[in-house]
């Protein structure tokens, strides 16, 4: 064995000699003016065991010194940072990335096979442009939903903190404030995250961090489509002032035909009704938790079914109006046909429209704001109110509650007879 690095010429040609390390943003730290130390053939790669150029630097104040751990060939094969072995593009462990992109990468792990594989990969990479990742990763570049949700978008500098002072843990640290290591309680040794190893992380097997991330992904909130198949409406919340009907239409038209978009600016929400259930389902899948329009993250929910709204309304009405029914009335009158306002195409009764709050049965909406969360969307036929309830309602705003109004005749409601425009 040669005594110095320079004298050892055995198989020297595949020793790596590089000018610049392959690193991620987090490992580089927050300081753009970085000094690095370079040591040619300083250590052996922790994966392929060949000598490589080690870089060492301090990623910012009160951070520990970091150095490159694997050689550039190994890092390029997996498209990972030379130091933290996390994916360069998404900042995720190899296992998570491979699972998300459905890559099957069978890297050999025995010595000779490994050498042969490295050699082939190096030859392949020499032909590559060096910009795109090579190997199985280069072929499977379709960003998946999982990657986008789990990926880190900002650097996570906490990873560069010093290690925990082992003397302090034993209660023997004499350096006190001056100690450059962290004086903190160590993590639980039974925690699976405490048992990581660089080879497993590189090959993407038994990686506890990856398991944790996968669990997080599976437990992420999902939007379950309601059982009532007639619901085709999505609630869009958190609109603010910037998002209006046009923006919503521009976004949602891609999933299918939109029947109506109903913006309730007061509640900063909107109801998007599709013509088909399938369209509504795709729209909810594609936009739940990721829809951002004009810089606002919009909140997507399913609309409520008409049945629920009906019961809610009944409850409300019951507590609000205790009026005597008109004696001798022949029950509910049939609702006048809708052709007055909206039914341009002579469509049959539409699927019930869902609102978050109950819809007003009748009456000009501007007079009963607290009762009403949003105007019913155009083209939606209001269901006939339950017979017992209908005649009980005084014209809102005419008389204060608890006053004299004992009777309410349906004809008192101007809206019902088509005297006013359907609330627009």
């Amino acid at each position, binding site marked *: 064995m040669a005594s110095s690095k320079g004298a050892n010429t055995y198989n020297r040609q595949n020793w790596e000699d590089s000018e610049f390390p392959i690193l991620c943003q987090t490992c580089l730290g927050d300081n753009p003016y970085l*000094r690095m*130390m370079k040591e040619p053939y300083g250590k052996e790669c922790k994966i392929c065991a060949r000598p490589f150029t080690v870089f060492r630097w301090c990623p910012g*104040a009160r951070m520990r010194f970091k150095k490159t751990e694997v050689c550039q060939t190994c890092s390029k094969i997996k498209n990972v940072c030379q130091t933290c072995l996390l994916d360069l593009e998404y900042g995720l462990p190899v296992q998570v990335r491979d699972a998300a992109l459905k890559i099957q990468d069978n890297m050999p792990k025995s010595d000779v096979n490994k050498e042969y594989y490295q050699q082939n990969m190096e030859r392949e990479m020499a032909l590559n442009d060096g910009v795109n990742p090579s190997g199985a990763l280069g072929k499977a570049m379709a960003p998946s939903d999982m990657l986008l949700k789990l990926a880190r978008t900002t650097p996570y500098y906490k990873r560069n903190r010093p290690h925990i002072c082992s003397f302090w843990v034993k209660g023997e640290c004499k350096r006190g*404030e*001056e100690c450059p290591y962290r004086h903190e309680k160590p993590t639980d040794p039974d925690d699976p995250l405490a048992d990581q190893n660089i080879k497993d992380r590189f090959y993407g097997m038994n990686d506890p961090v990856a398991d944790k991330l996968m669990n997080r992904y599976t437990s992420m909130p999902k939007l379950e489509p309601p059982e009532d198949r007639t619901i085709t409406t999505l609630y869009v919340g958190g609109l603010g002032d910037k998002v209006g009907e046009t923006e919503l239409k521009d976004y949602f038209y891609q999933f299918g035909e939109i029947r109506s978009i109903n913006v309730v600016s007061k509640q900063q929400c909107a109801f998007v009704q599709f013509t088909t259930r399938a369209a509504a389902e795709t729209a909810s899948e594609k936009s739940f938790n990721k829809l951002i329009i004009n810089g606002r993250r919009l909140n997507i929910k399913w609309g409520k079914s008409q049945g629920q709204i009906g019961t809610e309304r009944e409850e409300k009405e019951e507590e609000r109006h205790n009026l005597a029914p008109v004696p001798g009335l022949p029950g509910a009158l049939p609702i006048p046909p809708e052709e007055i306002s909206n039914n341009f195409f002579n469509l049959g009764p539409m699927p019930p429209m869902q609102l978050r709050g109950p819809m007003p049965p009748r009456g000009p909406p501007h007079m009963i704001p607290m009762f009403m969360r949003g105007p019913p969307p155009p083209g939606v036929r209001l269901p006939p109110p339950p017979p017992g309830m209908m005649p009980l309602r005084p014209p809102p705003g005419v008389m204060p509650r608890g006053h004299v109004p004992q009777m309410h005749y349906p004809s008192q409601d101007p809206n019902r007879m088509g005297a006013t425009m359907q609330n627009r």
Partner: protein
Amino acid sequence: MPKVKRSRKPPPDGWELIEPTLDELEAKMREAETDPHEGKRKVEALWPIFRLHHQRSRYIYDLFYRRKAISRELYEYCLKENIADKNLIAKWKKQGYENLCCLRCIQARDTNFGTNCICRVPKSKLEAGKIVECIHCGCRGCSG
């Protein structure tokens, strides 16, 4: 073992005035040399030696240049006998190096980026509240 005398000449006048202090420092140095290294960090082992060396040189330097208490002959005798470090004293005469802790701390060639030791950074330039203890001699800041 007593310190090896370089010259046969008897020490100049005033030697008997500074001798007890120098003997005391010498005894301390012996103690520091035989001190066990257990429980110390690797870099910490030499810190007491550096500190005593600095103290001894500083004593002679102060007596001659500040208090003018000893003669030039005695001062030069001390330099010649290696009681005081003449290279260190030479640095102390330069502006900005008045309190230099040791010569290693200004040896820029020994550092990765050609810089001086952290103890040479003025307190005002350091971030507030940072405690410095240089690895060469354990100096906590010798540059104002």
